[in-house]
């Protein structure tokens, strides 16, 4: 018996993606967010999650797909990675899957609309294929670099002669 992990599967442009369920904090219906200036286009804005300010990214835009109108099934999945929370907007949530670690296959370097950088593997359930997302990389790595740059800039300001 090998290790099992549970994944929440979400729909995105007729494909099915899995997010490690331990990283999922909550699922909420789509509500409008407050836009943040000077953000990458896929960062829709921030929302108020019980007093915390949480950025929300559109997974379609993140993966370079076109954005569709938000409808009744559009949801925001709140994810916690490394102590930071952010929301991802997906077309719909569908299922929870048990995936054994030996059922995980590497991603071939083609055939998907999503950059393989953000995937950590794929698995098949019956005749469905599920792509497993690497949640750590969704808001990174560009953003982490930008953050570092901002912090460096801030620290020169603080230095008192």
């Amino acid at each position: 018996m090998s290790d099992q992990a549970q994944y929440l599967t979400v729909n995105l442009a007729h494909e099915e993606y899995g997010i490690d369920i331990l990283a999922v904090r909550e699922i909420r219906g789509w509500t409008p967010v407050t836009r943040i200036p000077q953000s990458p286009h896929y960062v829709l804005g921030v929302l108020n999650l019980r007093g915390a300010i949480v950025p929300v990214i559109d997974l379609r835009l993140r993966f370079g797909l076109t954005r569709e109108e938000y409808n009744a099934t559009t949801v925001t999945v709140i994810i916690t990675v490394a102590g930071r929370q952010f929301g991802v907007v997906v077309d719909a949530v569908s299922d929870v899957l048990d995936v054994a670690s030996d059922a995980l296959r590497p991603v071939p370097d083609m055939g998907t609309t999503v950059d393989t950088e953000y995937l950590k593997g794929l698995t098949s359930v019956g005749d469905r294929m599920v792509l497993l997302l690497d949640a750590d990389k969704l808001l990174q790595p560009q953003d982490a670099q930008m953050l570092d740059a901002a912090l460096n800039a801030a620290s020169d300001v603080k230095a008192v002669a």
Partner: protein
Amino acid sequence: MSNISIAQFHKVFFEESLEGLDAMEAALLALDEGGDAELVHSIFRAAHSIKGGSATFGFPDMAALTHEAESLLDQVRDGRRAIDKSIIELMLRTVDCLRGMFDRAQNGQPLADADSENLKQQLAVAAGNNVPAAANKAAAKPAASSGWIIQFRPHAGMLAGGNDPLRLLRELAALGQLVVEAQLDRVPTLDALDPSECHLGWRIELTGAVSQDAIKTVFEWVEDECDLTIEPLVAVAPPPAPAVEAVATPAAGAGAAAGTTRAAASSNDAGSVRVAIDKIDGLIDLVGELVITQAMLDQFREEFDPSRLAMLQHGLAQLARHTRSLQESVMGIRMLPIGSVFNRFPRLVRDLSQKLGKQVKLDLVGEHTELDKTVLEKIGDPLVHLVRNAIDHGLEMPEKRRAAGKNEVGTLRLEAFHRGGSIVVEISDDGAGLNRDAIIAKALQKGLIKSGDDLSDEAVGELIFQPGFSTAAVTTDLSGRGVGMDVVRRNVVDLGGNVAIKSRAGQGTTFTITLPLTLAIIDGLRAAVGGECYIVPLVSIVESVQLRADAVRSVTGGGELFRFRGEYRPIVRLHQQFGCANARQNIEDGLVIVVEADGTQIGLFVDELVGQQQAVVKSLEANYRRVDGISGATILADGSVALIVDVAGLIRLQSRRKAA
């Protein structure tokens, strides 16, 4: 030994010891100005508890150093030697060194370094050399001995008194090499064993040049609770192997435990606040009130009858009142007296004035004024800078002061007080004041002004806050100030405050720092920009004006200027800056909010002002990152998020754009 790790108490120990060191330093400085015996006692007590604590918590290096300091202090306390400058200097260095050790202990680094070893030796020498003849006679013979045999038999009830024999052994180990032999003859059979009593005794051979007094000090607190004999070690045997089971095992165990938890402790070091009990009691009372109000309002949920509308209104009013007081009380928890920042100044002033050969009297006023913890932590550096400047450049040398008919001793005054919704900190000296001519000359040379003839004193004072003034070319010969003043102002402005300067030639200079009471809640105006809503902090708003199209001048390069009170100010169109769609484009349709920071004014063009509100500041960086021109976010009454405009940041962006 129980398995409870003592490392969990480290944090409290560090905090208390650092407070003890602060107290020691303050008392030493007071002593320097001629204090009484009570001060010596308080210094001794502080040193003693640090020594006891550090031995208990497994920091032998620290215990050894404090032990030496304590021996020296003991001589002073008993009147065997008079306190003098050299002792005070040595003690102050010990305080510094111990602070460094605590720093390293918190990071899990080795405590001792060359400095501490060196200092320990100096302390020992100071304590040893100056034992007067009378006391010397008793101590001389044993001191020559190379060691001691100590018979230590705790009474059965010693543990109940809170004394740990192991700690004593460890303290002894700090004095020299130990050979410890446990005496098990009094240990009862298992069925008669009372684990809360002490049945063991020890025969301890202590090798090393240790005075009998030093050993007695170790046992000072348990004298009445044990049988103790101390005899000189007669046979000068070669030093035996350093560690022996009785001590080695538990000590090593504790050390390992301390090692692991220390790492854990440093990882979750989120900082802590000490809160006065009455503040907490007040909070509990308020929460009680709130629960009662809630219960009262809950009645209406069952059945609502329009005739009870008045009661409902009354209940809601009560709820609003309690919420407000609860908010104030919770904010109060973050408030700490500014004294904790002021405390570092007596030492700084003393050291600096000695170095520069000036005489300075420091007056601290309003140490109990309370400030938000965050503000408090960040105001320290700017204050240090201003104080250093005041002593270095402001106050004159004694001869010069005498020549000017002033008291040779210059006065430096730090005062904190409330004014309206702000805290004001004033740093004033009675020195020479700003050197107007030199500053004007410098400003002319830098091209900051065109002519210095008709400048008011205030305008001259403003000049030193210009970034151009903080260059190495401004040396201390120029008796005006200005080294890094722009950084001071920027630090204060980042906290939402401001710095002003007032100077009278020959009479002195006063810096006035105005700070907001808290950073957590600000008053702001809601401004609408193309369907979006931004909060502009009220403190930075000067005025809002509706401009006629002909009042705006375009400049080549795309900039816009408008005339406000006789000066041209740049306009920042918020919708361009933040990329808002559907905003009003025509300058006559919107409003220009004149805002000020860093002494610079700009106009922010927005669609309209929607209203005023208190905003609870939330961090954008916690989950996202810093955004230029935005200082944070807040939550509006409808639960949506609004961003707070960073006025100082926008002005900086604007001037950078101009420079580019």
